[in-house]
């Protein structure tokens, strides 16, 4: 496990809601491999700094961003572990679909009862 000051698990819902916005996904891509201050993140968007701050707030709340203070600057980075519950959920997509497949096939082609 990577070092993380925030160990509280966040429900997948909060993470999914945070990821539902294209601007927020873009923010995560920007800080995926590097720490950036809010101003530099905002410079990538045609949004007000205030709007970008709001998005950063949502991502922080969902546990998707780490925040570190350096002098007067706040530096943000992706907290990779936060994606784990969503990855786990993602892993439900195919099993879920395949159990529907099983049901569909076995209903359409019932086996005669064994004698």
């Amino acid at each position, binding site marked *: 496990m990577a070092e993380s000051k925030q160990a509280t698990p966040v429900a*997948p*819902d909060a993470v*999914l809601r945070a*990821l*539902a*916005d294209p601007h*927020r*996904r873009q923010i*995560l*891509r920007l800080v*995926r491999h590097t720490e950036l201050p809010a101003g530099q993140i905002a410079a990538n968007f045609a949004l007000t700094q205030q709007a970008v701050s709001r998005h950063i707030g949502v991502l922080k709340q969902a546990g998707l961003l780490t925040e570190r203070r350096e002098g007067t600057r706040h530096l943000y980075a992706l907290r990779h572990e936060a*994606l784990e519950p*969503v*990855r*786990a*959920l*993602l*892993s*439900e*997509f*195919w*099993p*879920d*679909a*395949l*159990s*529907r*497949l*099983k*049901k*569909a*096939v*076995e209903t*359409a*082609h019932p*086996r005669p009862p064994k004698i």
Partner: protein
Amino acid sequence: MTADIRNDIIIATEHIKARPEVVFPYFTDPALIVAWIGERAELDPQPDGVFSLDMGEVVALGTYTTVEPPYRVVFTWGIPGNDTLPPGASTVEVVLTPDGDDTMLVLTHRGLPSAHIGYHRSGWEDRLGRLRAAAG
């Protein structure tokens, strides 16, 4: 039914009480595929043939790369207009192995970028709801 996810590869397995000959068309026949996934499908099951699956809010689009009835089918899987998971970006391989009169199905989904998950939100939220309901 089991699933495993590592390094952005998903492996899912299912045991089905029917022969591979019966199961296979559920990956190639538009009328049969919608019995378990998607709402509408356009399928041309031959190499470079279209694989298009309308799942309501999301359309999965790709092409078949391998069609070997009744044991193996491979198609690409992506979301049109999506920069992290464009059509062709990921690959789904389905292998059907006879198990007596039954079929052991192994599905492997490769090439999923971790950043694409947000685009599947509605689907996952829907599933999350059902998971929660199932878990009580």
